[in-house]
């Protein structure tokens, strides 16, 4: 089920929460919304799920407009809102039955789906307990079970892993991955590793506009700046950093070096090189030729964190 968002805008009074967002999601894709708090991720999701209409622009879920065909669209969508609101006074099974009946699932069909979701989401041990008694991890699973109960084609998950411990995060991610193969999934997060772990594609949203769109690798590549090589050298006493610099200048594509520390004859410095150059081998050969002792060397490329930081500040 494809989703097409065209020039979406939403104003809350004077505040422009989103200012012209357009993108398309293909069937079977897992797309991650990434952005700082207040960037417009949740607002965009609330519009896609028909909670509220946009100020202007439109969202189409498989050619159906979210405003005109609201009920039909809602039938196709499973939604896990931010903060995962649940009826705390209801037992898990009863809550799932309630959700099923809102989707007009009844009788045998409903029981089968519920049993399936209880199994997939690992709720068997807590199914008769009140939701209010459950830990955050279990509540999140109840939220996911509720969202996927009616086997929707589209899953919208607003920060599905917030507040979970690291083990639970891994579990929920693999659950999303597993289920995401057959469905169109949009999830939001501000945890970057989450996007790398689960999403086929990333949309970075900042101040109500999309600032980047691509696979995690693509983004890393596209926004990759110059590379940095951190080198640790032991040089014989008379030689100083300046002496080393003289020889380094001869290296191909050398753009500069900054000294980090100089203690006990050990020099630590950063080498700046052009995009896509790998100086490690040349540095090694130079060290051998000069009889310097190479203690360490590491190459740093731009991480998704840095891309994110660059785009959203």
């Amino acid at each position, binding site marked *: 089920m494809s989703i097409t968002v065209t020039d979406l805008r939403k104003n809350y009074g004077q505040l422009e929460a989103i200012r012209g967002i357009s993108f398309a999601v293909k069937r079977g894709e897992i797309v991650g919304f990434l952005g700082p708090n207040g960037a417009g991720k949740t607002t965009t999701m*609330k519009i896609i*799920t*028909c*909670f*509220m*209409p946009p100020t202007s622009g439109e969202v189409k879920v498989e050619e159906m407009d979210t405003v005109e065909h609201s*009920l*039909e669209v*809602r*039938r196709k*969508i499973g*939604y896990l*809102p931010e*903060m995962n*609101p*649940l*009826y*705390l*006074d*209801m037992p898990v099974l*009863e809550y799932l039955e*309630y*959700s099923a*009946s*809102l*989707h*007009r699932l009844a009788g045998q069909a409903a029981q089968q789906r519920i049993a399936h979701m209880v199994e997939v989401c690992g709720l068997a041990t807590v199914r008769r307990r009140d939701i209010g008694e459950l830990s955050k991890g279990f509540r999140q699973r109840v939220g996911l079970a*509720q969202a996927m109960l009616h086997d929707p084609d589209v899953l919208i998950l607003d920060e599905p892993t917030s507040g979970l411990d690291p083990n639970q995060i891994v579990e929920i991610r693999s659950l999303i991955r597993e289920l995401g193969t057959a469905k169109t999934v949009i999830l939001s997060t501000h945890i970057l590793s989450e996007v790398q772990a689960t999403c086929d594609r990333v949309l970075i949203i900042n101040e109500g506009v999309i600032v980047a769109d691509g696979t995690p690798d693509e983004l890393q590549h596209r926004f990759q700046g110059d590379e940095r090589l951190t080198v640790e050298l032991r040089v014989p006493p008379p030689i100083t950093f300046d002496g080393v610099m003289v020889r380094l200048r001869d290296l191909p594509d050398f753009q500069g070096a900054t000294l980090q520390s100089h203690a006990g004859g050990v020099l630590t410095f950063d080498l700046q090189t052009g995009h896509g150059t790998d100086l490690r081998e040349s540095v090694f050969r130079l060290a051998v030729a000069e009889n310097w002792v190479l203690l360490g060397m590491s190459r740093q490329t731009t991480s998704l964190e840095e891309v994110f930081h660059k785009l959203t500040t």
Partner: protein
Amino acid sequence: MNLQNVLPVFRREIRSYFNSPVAYVVMIVFLAIIGWFFSSNLFLQNMATMRVVFELVPLVFLFFIPAVTMRLLAEEKKSGTLELLTTKPVADVEIILGKFLAGWALVAATLVPTLVFLITLMILGSPDVGPVLAGYAGLLLMGGVYVAIGLLSSSLTENQIVAFIVGFLIIFVLYMLDKVLIYIPSAFASTFEFLAIDTHFSNIARGVIDSRDVIYFASLLGFSLMLATVSLERRKW
């Protein structure tokens, strides 16, 4: 609108009333208050009548109905479950209707035990059953209007206390309109009297079910539910 969508909302609210102490506490307190006033004068008066019940219940409803309806929407707004509910394939008017019917059903359920008084009277004497049944019909209609107003005020806020106070105030005004007739210019008196809920209730409680009174209740009820639906749709503005 589809009854299939109203039913799950209705069922959940009913369960929530009866799975918690709310329904039972309310029913017991209600029965105790009405029972006290019913029985204390019964033998002094020596008349097989339920007049005192029909005088007292509207007053008790004034406090009791806003108290049981205040959470219907305010609580869901506050906890965020309303967002979940309104993104399910259920129309706003179906949500309002399901919740209204649940509140109304609770009101009806609290009236059922008071039939004990009627049975008592039937054992002790021979009451005129017709006006009593009409009185119950009137109480149900009035309770329906109160529930609709309570639901409306619950839809306006996410604070249950505010919902209670607003609901109480609206109902209080409707209730008091015909009690202040001596203080207002005579030109408005008939209007006030017509708008007052007690005028129409006492007409029915006398045993005369007039279409004018029924229409009054039905339109007030419908109007409140309509406003509640509009208020729920406010998120879309």
